[in-house]
């Protein structure tokens, strides 16, 4: 747990300190990769709350989604089709769904706890 937080902090500081400049046309890929990673993160949290969480699925999904999204965007740029829109759409919808599911689960958990305490009390 602490190692993960350490990794996060290290990653953030590394990203802030990196003075590397990339061409603006590649910034789109990065934004899509960010979206994909966010989607995977919330998917993982939801899976954890639903008790169907798997390390392998999470880690492989994390990296694979990033690469897939960036690759799709790359392909779209070269084919003249805005494929990154598809990635943004898919990941955006899934992100909202995941967050909604998480919210409901948390809500259900909270109400369950409250009811249990009331019944206990």
């Amino acid at each position, binding site marked *: 747990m602490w190692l993960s937080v*350490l990794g996060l902090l290290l*990653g*953030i500081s590394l*990203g802030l300190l990196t003075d590397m400049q990339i061409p603006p046309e590649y910034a789109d890929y990065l*934004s899509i990769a960010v979206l994909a990673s966010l989607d995977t993160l919330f998917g993982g949290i939801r899976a954890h709350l639903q008790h169907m969480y798997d390390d392998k699925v999470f880690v492989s999904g994390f990296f694979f989604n990033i690469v897939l999204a960036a690759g799709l965007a790359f392909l779209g740029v070269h084919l003249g089709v805005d494929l990154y829109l598809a990635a943004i759409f898919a990941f955006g919808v899934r992100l909202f769904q995941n967050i909604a599911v998480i919210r409901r689960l948390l809500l259900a958990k909270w109400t369950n706890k409250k009811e249990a305490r009331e019944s206990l009390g």
Partner: protein
Amino acid sequence: MKNLHRNNRSKFSKSIIFSLVFLVLGFMFSYSYSLSKSQERSSEFTGGAYFEQEEQYRKELIEQQERNKSLREELEEKQAAIQEFEQSFSEGESRNTDYAEEAEELRRVLGLLPVEGSGLTVTLQDGEYNSDSVNPNDYIVHESHVFQVINELYISGAEAISINGQRIHANSHIVCTGPVIAVDGVQHPAPFTIAAIGKPDVLASSIKLSGGVMDQLVNDNVVVTLDEGQVISMPAFLTET
């Protein structure tokens, strides 16, 4: 105990993987954040400073063009100067060739160069022995005769004269020493062949003028032979003959 150990280990590797995932996540977030920030800054930069820079470039361009123009003018000036110089140089060269030709001509006249040309040869021979005359001076060729001929030839436009193949020049001296004549110290016996380069007909007719040189020579019992129209070549007077 062993099971617990394995569990610990798998937990450790799991957390390693998670830290890696979060590292990538954090890096991507912060990097895209800083990137969008820098892009904002650059878009700000394109606002005012862009035109300023363009203005500056334009100014530099104008400066360069002005400089080019002045340099071109300078170049034209220099080219004109070079042309002038070349012209004067070629003029000088032609003048030089004129001078060289003149110098050669003068040298030819002075006798410093061997010359060749059409002309006239006058041969003066002693008269035949005459028993009537007591004095042998009456029928031999004297230096005065030679002088007369030479002067007549020079007057009538001879360009070069030689006696028996020895060139005569401005400072030549002809001395009678008994039966022979010394030209510049070189003795020549009779007959004397005086060769002159010039217009053969003019020279011949001037020699043949009635009461002129030829008549006087004949009066002095000198045998005169004229031979005109042949090509005569003379050595330079400095060369040994």
